[in-house]
């Protein structure tokens, strides 16, 4: 299971990184989202991988999973979700303001230089 988990996490992170380095806003946003998924999976595994373990102490249970990474992932998911929503809106705003979805659109700069 460890090998599968590590492969999936690594593949997600690599795809996310590749997309985040693209030149248009939409792939960048998708890339950052994939990256945050990979990070969430990675955080999940930091307490060690266990199946069927209880997170909260119960009578008669001897098999426990580390509850802290689960709580951390929950926080990270909430924050990541808010950030994705924000960056989507922002990307649309950039598209509207500039008339192009290039991350590094230089047309605006040139126009300003000529004016001055």
């Amino acid at each position, binding site marked *: 299971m460890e090998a599968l988990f590590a492969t999936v996490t690594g593949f997600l992170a690599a795809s996310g990184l590749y997309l985040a380095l693209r030149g248009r806003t939409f792939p960048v946003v998708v890339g950052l989202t994939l990256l945050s998924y990979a990070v969430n999976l990675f955080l999940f595994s930091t307490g060690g991988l266990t199946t069927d373990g209880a997170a909260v102490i119960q009578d008669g249970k001897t098999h426990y999973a580390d509850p802290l990474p689960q709580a951390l992932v929950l926080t990270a998911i909430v924050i990541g979700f808010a*950030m994705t929503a924000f960056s989507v809106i922002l*990307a649309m705003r950039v598209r509207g303001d500039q008339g192009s979805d290039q*991350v590094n659109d230089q047309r605006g700069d040139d126009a300003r230089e000529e004016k001055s």
Partner: protein
Amino acid sequence: MQHLIILPILLPLFTGLAMLIKRDATMQPRRTIGLVSTALLVVISVALVVESSDGQISYYALGGWQPPFGIILVLDRLSALMVCLTSVLALGSLAYACAGDDKKGSNFHGLFQLQLMGINGAFLTGDMFNLFVFFEVLLIASYSLLMHGGGKDRTQAGFHYVALNLAGSAMFLIALGVLYGTTGTLNMADMGQRVAQLDPERLGLLKAGAFLLLVVFGLKSAILPLYFWLPRAYASAPAPVAALFAIMTKVGVYAILRVYTLIFGDSAGDLANFVQPWLWWFALATIALGGIGVLSARDLRTQVAYLILISVGTLLVGVSMDRVASLSALLYYMLHTTLVSGGLFLLADAIADQRGKAGARIVPGRGVTQPALLGLAYFVGAITVVGLPPLSGAIGKALLLDAAQPSEQPWLWSLLLLSSLAGLVAMGRSGSTVFWKAGKADPEGSRLKPSMLAGLALLLGASPLLAIFAGPITEFTQASAAQLLDPSAYTQAILAPTSGGGS
């Protein structure tokens, strides 16, 4: 009073929430609430500084859960000093914003308070994951504040800033995961203890995590290979926001200072002080590049942004020297540079406002409406930011130069002094262009409003005050540095079961 520690977080939180109650309300009550709350924050933070000045490290355990299991807020001299610095800077920029900049977009005051909450929280927390959470709080507020008022330039600079910081947050979480996976704790004091006793087989993993953390903090503090977002973002942000952002890079410097003295400090066994040699070269390169950038800037605001870059390099050089004298010098320099560069952002905006079409660009244009007042402010700001005597910049730099050992002197002295020279030339050139090569001023042009003047006077006036009271202030920073370099006292105060604290 034990609840005092959490007030710098709760007060801005509740003020920020109060601002949301009636979104279409008129500006005046919000300005009053914001200013009163920030002034109260100054009072609280001064009380915190007084409380911490006896050298006692106290903590506040949220929900009564004792460390290392519960989440704690820690008050020592360094965090009290940083909270105090934040609140003074915030008061100055908020006063300036109340002259009309806050009306250009919605919810300025609410976001401003939430940003303060994030910054104060980052300074006070004693838990690694909470450091991440407070970083996110301050970043989310800063994203919106950066784009306050809108405009093409701002949205594009904003998108770069957001994308970069999202990637930074992802790396922060990976680093946290690695640190938690190897040490099994998130409490900073506890982590420091466990790093020393770690199984040598896991040392490589831990080191990778620690380096990744350095990358994240380096991104926040804008150290050399990671600074490219800063000049554009700061130059396009609205003036009061840019002034408040002067503390944001210092949050990164604070985090480096805290983590790499407490967790990976002298007591960390094999990993003791392993980042300092790396920091030394990167910081020197940042200073050199900042000097070149200052000379190349064509806009007053970009120029101030590059001056911030020089100051970040200077601060990190102090961190990398890792001695009481250098840390004390850097803390004094941090007080000076944060307030003065905040003030210079406000000043650049005031100048741009009065020059009409020429704006903040460094070209001959219309004169400013109040040449005497703004000229004097520019003179004071320029002298102190490049480090000419008699103001506080000179004292800070002299203390740092003095702290260097003979082997470090050739590098530090030459680069720091050359970058100061570059700053001097650049500030002199832009000052003479803006004030002396100017055409006739428009007598009907806009003038400084009283609250703008108050904000400017508070931030730039801090420099002579810092110089006059340099004695007591350096005494405090010296004690803070000594406290910082003694991580065992910190660990003792947090983890020893006998010590009180909490609620």
